[in-house]
């Protein structure tokens, strides 16, 4: 017992200062049981399956968005071509062919006709 507890106990004791009407406890149980209705079965509220799964679905959605965003970001950075010698040569070839076609005034249809012969 602490000092503070001792002060309270010495001054005021632990005696119960409350009283009840005479015979209250003698009749309480009997009176209560006489008025007790039939038991109303309290059914615990079932959470719907969607409610139970909601946090999991939200987490899965966040994960999907994250994976999609990362994939998209990585693909974009891979799309920017590095100028390898072969790619540079191809670019030069295409430019040259376009200029040549302009010079001889050939359009695409003429070129395809030429190639098919």
């Amino acid at each position, binding site marked *: 017992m602490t000092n503070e507890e001792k002060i309270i106990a010495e*001054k005021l004791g632990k005696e119960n200062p409350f009283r009840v009407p005479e015979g209250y406890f003698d009749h309480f149980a009997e009176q*209560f*049981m006489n008025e007790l209705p039939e038991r109303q079965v309290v059914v615990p509220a079932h959470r719907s399956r969607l409610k139970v799964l909601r946090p999991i679905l939200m987490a899965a959605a966040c994960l999907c968005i994250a994976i999609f965003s990362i994939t998209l970001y990585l693909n974009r950075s891979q799309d920017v071509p590095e100028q390898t010698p072969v790619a540079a040569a191809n670019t030069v070839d295409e430019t040259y062919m376009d200029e040549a076609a302009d010079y001889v005034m050939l359009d695409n249809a003429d070129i395809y006709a030429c190639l098919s012969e």
Partner: protein
Amino acid sequence: MTPPLSEKELLLMLNNPQTQRQAFGIIVQQYSERLYWQVRRLILNHDDADDVMQNALLKAWNNIGSFRSDSKLSTWLYRIVINESLDFIRRQKNITALSTDNELSGIANTLMADKYFDGDEAQAKLQAAIALLPEVQRTVFNLRYYEDMKYSEISKILNTSEGALKASYHIAVKKISEYFKQHD
């Protein structure tokens, strides 16, 4: 006079629909007095305490199917009764909001005028000082000081850690003793 039934015997009777009502009657008979005093110390007034007891026991009856025998029957009943008392106190607080000083003398005067209160002025003030504590401190103080209940048991009733309960009790004791030191 028949000896009180053990908790195991009562649970067997409760699980049988044929004897369920009879078992609950025995429970009310065996536990109502202990439960009432706990309610009364929180509520202070007999008529209100009686109402709270009726409501709490009705709730216990309707929810008896949800009682799990992993806790003691008395712990479960104490929990229902204390929750019902604290709900009542919260509702009352919304109705009457007074300043602390007025509240303390108001509660003490009301108790002194109550025909079901036998204490002197100092005891009325002690009850008023307890009534003004926050609800956890108030409940722990009553269970520990008046009923000598173990912290492990209080912890199960209030669903709070023993450490937190010890701290609450210590603060409550300090507040009450300081109040009496100041007013000596």
